[in-house]
């Protein structure tokens, strides 16, 4: 079923459709479970426990409030992976719809990304609550960094998600490749370790800046600066022992650094977005036939 309308109202109707699809996915996911939405906190909680145990307890990472540091970036990464994987399979998962109903196909990957966004937003609310509880309230001007950072992340997620969604219809290998690539990608992004680890090895040259062409690296350091906000290692026994006391933990105290890093990430994110929209537009008219 489908109804075409004049261009003026189309955007509004599409947004409404995406909202309906997200609502449907949330409802279907949590239907019949007593704890419902709370389950979306289970996964990050598990990550928190495991990684904190491994890195803070076993490897004795000198990063203070390791759990908070980890979650500041990890939740954003969760949004990216959930969004991209969800978008990748969104056309296949709704084959019945695509084959029988004319509608704007981009609603499907966008709804998958919106679904990821709704869950991660809740996780961030819990994280901010935790910040107040442990006495690290993120009430600082740098908090505003999350706005441009989100724009870059959303562009990268939508771009890559739509590219993979369109590509998977014709080449089913894409979905498996995406899974593997995302896993490797996570370890190349400063989520579990601070970006300063990378800086020490890459120096201050072109290589250092090239690192931020990773479209997730810039946004993640911004989120760490905005929410976690511990710029220097504190003076503790552990940090004195490793000679890190007073050294930089986050890459810089200076907002301009983060904006530059974000700018580099934005370049790649824009390339992703253009490539994703281009491929999706090109292929979407053939989806019904190829499914």
């Amino acid at each position, binding site marked *: *079923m*489908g*109804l*075409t*309308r004049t261009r003026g*109202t189309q955007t*509004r*109707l599409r947004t*409404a*459709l995406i*909202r*309906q*699809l997200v609502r*449907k996915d949330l*409802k*279907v996911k949590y*239907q019949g479970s007593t704890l419902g939405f709370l389950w979306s906190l289970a996964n990050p909680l598990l990550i928190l426990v495991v990684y904190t145990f491994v890195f803070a307890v076993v490897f004795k990472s000198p990063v203070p409030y390791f759990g908070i540091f980890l979650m500041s970036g990890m939740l954003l990464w969760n949004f990216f992976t959930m969004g991209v994987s969800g978008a990748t399979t969104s056309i296949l998962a709704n084959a*019945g*719809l695509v*084959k*029988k*109903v*004319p*509608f704007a196909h981009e609603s499907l990957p966008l709804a998958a990304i919106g679904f990821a966004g709704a869950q991660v937003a809740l996780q961030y609310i819990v994280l901010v609550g935790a910040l107040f509880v442990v006495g690290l309230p993120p009430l600082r001007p740098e908090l505003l960094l999350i706005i441009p950072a989100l724009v870059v992340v959303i562009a990268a997620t939508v771009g890559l998600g739509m590219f993979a969604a369109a590509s998977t219809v*014709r*080449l*089913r*290998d894409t979905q498996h490749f995406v899974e593997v690539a995302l896993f490797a990608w996570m370890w190349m992004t400063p989520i579990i370790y601070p970006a300063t680890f990378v800086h020490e090895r890459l120096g201050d040259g072109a290589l250092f800046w090239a690192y931020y062409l990773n479209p997730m690296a810039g946004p993640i350091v911004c989120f760490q600066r905005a929410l976690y906000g511990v710029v220097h290692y504190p003076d503790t026994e552990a940090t004195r022992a490793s000679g890190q006391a007073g050294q930089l933990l986050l890459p810089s105290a200076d907002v301009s650094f983060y904006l530059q890093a974000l700018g580099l990430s934005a370049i790649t994110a824009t390339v992703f977005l253009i490539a994703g929209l281009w491929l999706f537009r090109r292929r979407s*008219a*053939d989806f*019904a*036939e*190829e499914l």
Partner: protein
Amino acid sequence: MSDAVDAIDRMGLDPGAEILIEARGVSKRFASYHRRATSLKERLVRREESEGDVFWALRDVDLVVRRGETVALTGPNGSGKSTMLKVLAGILRPNEGSVDVRGRVASLLELGAGFDGELTGRENIYLNSALLGVPREETDALFDMIVDFSELGEFIEYPVKHYSSGMYVRLGFAVAVHVDPDILIVDEVLAVGDAAFQRKCLNRIEEFQRQGKTILFVSHAAGQVESLCTRAVLLERGQVLFDGPPRQTIKRLNGILGVDNIAMVAGEMARISDFAIVDTGTDEGVEEFTAGSSARVTCTLTIHQPLPEDARFSLHINAPGQSDAVAHVSPNWHVVSADRLPVGEHAISWQVDEWPDMPGDFSLALGVFLGPTLIAAARLDGLRLSSGQVRHVPGTLVLDGTTQG
């Protein structure tokens, strides 16, 4: 006189009415399914698709529909009707030609296609409306009417996975007919639901017609085509065979249907039973056939009403997926005069002297015609012939053992 005739008069069929659908030279090609590479490995191994794997579902089809017309697309199975609807609805992209559709289109290719089993009827109404492009406020306003039309009552609050198929269909149609399109595109969905609900749907469609809306639908039902449409288009093998008044189109359709649509006429005048192939010598059923061997084809023809004219028999061999016979037991038509076939049971047999030399799976089809109308038909599937070019199979019709009924 029927409503539909009134509708036709009312609409006046103004030849100068605005053109809402204009398809020119539309061709649609499908790569055969088993040849499509969907994994990287297959892609790398098999780079080119050869022409031989391509099937043309539509070939150079022109269709112009004006405001206020109700047009049926009809034709035998696999003639391209549904493909054409999908192209017009914008689901499939034609490989050649142009499609221009002006105005708001609501297409209903499968009832409840956008439903999610986990959601309640209420939630599905909103989801489906959003898919159809109806703003939420409009759905709010229409909600009670939709529930009313669907006759679901309190069930509207239950997940649709618990619905019976009838309830499912009612809800799907209720949503679809409450949007307000200029053009309604409907696939064979009117054939579902109980009689009372079908009547309701037809009333709704007639209401659409009175409002001067344009309707395009696929139908096999001759009665429906004749009573609802202002025009009918006959497709066969992806091409337009005829485009004109419904009655004439149906006549032509009956003419080409052969055995694929026995349901339309079977049983009224005559019936075939015990259709079988037996060994020439032993009269026992034969399962396997080798080219060049002989056999006998037998059946019982029961005539219910006196035949007004001579009957013509056609015994032919069909290949799967092809609507034309690949071989006839010659001559193409065995004519039997009406007075040799009085009311009663007749044992009829054909002597097939030599099975054709064509490898593959076939079915043997028998049709009995009065003029262009098929009055009885039967088919034997799963015939397998081994390895040829013989297009005419010599044979003789033997009419014997007539018993008066």
